[in-house]
């Protein structure tokens, strides 16, 4: 059980809770990278997804792209971009943005698409312009799925940002990578525990946002069963 006690010791050591390599600072860094990446990726992917979902154009391209991206190994993309663009924080962040785009895109087009076509036709018949249909009917009704897309993108970026410590990014992944370099298992395990906690908290927050977005509309939930 010494592994567990060592890890707990590492986590509770007061040295760990202050300074540039302290958990609060690393945690803030990690959340900062995640927020930055999601914001940039959302600016690119969400409007594009809305357009695809609304017009139905390039839908098969988007489906194929999101499917193909799943096969692309994150570590491969990270090392590739880091080597290609050189040292610094920008290359890993670019890789994170690239990886955040597919889930955001999928959430945006699936959300708009999932709106009942009769509802859309009714809005059109009432004289809504296409823009009004999108902003007043499709986006509000598709919101739970759109938020779901953001949720999976956030989780994915939290996970990938950890891996990105290997190519020089800061954040919580530093504990795992630096610990691995000096065979310091308690540091790796302690860092992992913090990463898992962060992922679970963020998932909880977005689950709450998602149910807030669904309101009382049961159709918004996947009704597979």
């Amino acid at each position, binding site marked *: 059980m010494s592994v567990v006690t060592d890890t707990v010791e590492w986590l509770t050591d007061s040295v760990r809770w202050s300074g540039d390599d302290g958990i609060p600072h690393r945690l803030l860094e990690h959340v900062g990278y995640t927020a930055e990446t999601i914001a940039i990726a959302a600016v690119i992917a969400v409007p594009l997804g809305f357009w695809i979902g609304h017009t139905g154009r390039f839908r098969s391209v988007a489906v194929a792209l*999101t499917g193909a991206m799943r096969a692309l190994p994150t570590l491969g993309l990270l090392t590739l971009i880091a080597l290609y663009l050189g040292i610094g924080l920008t290359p890993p962040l670019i890789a994170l943005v690239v990886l955040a785009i597919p889930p955001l895109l999928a959430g945006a087009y699936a959300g708009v698409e999932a709106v009942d076509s009769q509802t859309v036709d009714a809005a059109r018949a009432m004289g809504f312009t296409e823009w009004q249909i999108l902003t007043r009917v499709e986006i509000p009704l598709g919101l739970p799925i759109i938020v779901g897309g953001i949720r999976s993108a956030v989780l994915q970026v939290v*996970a990938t940002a950890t891996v990105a410590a290997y190519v020089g990014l800061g954040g919580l992944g530093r504990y795992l990578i630096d610990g691995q370099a000096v065979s310091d298992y308690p540091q790796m395990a302690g860092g992992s525990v913090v990463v898992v906690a962060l992922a679970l908290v963020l998932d909880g927050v977005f689950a709450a946002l998602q149910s807030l977005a669904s309101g009382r509309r049961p159709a918004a939930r996947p009704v597979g069963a």
Partner: protein
Amino acid sequence: MTWLLDNLDLVRELFVRHAWISVVSTLIGFAVSLPIGWYAHQHPRIRGLTVALVGVLYTIPSIALFVILPGVLGTGFLSVVNVVVALSTYAAAVMVRTATDAFGSVSPAVVDAATAAGFSGAQRVFRVELPLAGPVLLAGLRVVSVSTVSMLSVASLIGVSNLGSLFTDGFRRDFLTEIVIGIGAIVLLALLLDLLLVLAGRVLMPWSRAQRTAAPTSRPRQAFWSRFTGVRA
């Protein structure tokens, strides 16, 4: 290209290793998920809890799980067992949800008809419910297989060798070619396994070919899959 020819043995060895770890993990996850998914489908009260629980499992970043598992399981840090357990857990996390949906997609009328025709409980499950749930299970398995292949490469960071080792090695040596070949090999493996699954589906479920286009595009299912699109690290 010369590098690939010079190191063909290494790449082939890593490819085979990557393939068996992915296949074994996917199959274990699939095997574990079937009874859980079936049980959850039978008991609506447990269904919500199960789906929530596997959702939480899926939330854990893989690199963290790769690191934590040796401490929990007491296995060696470099043991491939950690990686197989971690990847099987993710596979099961997605497949339990899919299996619940898959058994839910079987028409209750058909199940009742089977009972009326004198099928015993086990016969009904294996000869009616399981085959009819097959197409949805296959769709889930294809997603899991691809993401398992991709996720395994992260394990090279903690020293368990696989095709991802080409990334770490290439990065350390500042050698782009090796990384590109690693990505190519992983994508190739993912495609190969996907092809095998599709072929297996055609052989095992020849009846589903005609309906295949109709099933996966249904709206609710799409909403569900949107959670799992994109790569996982």
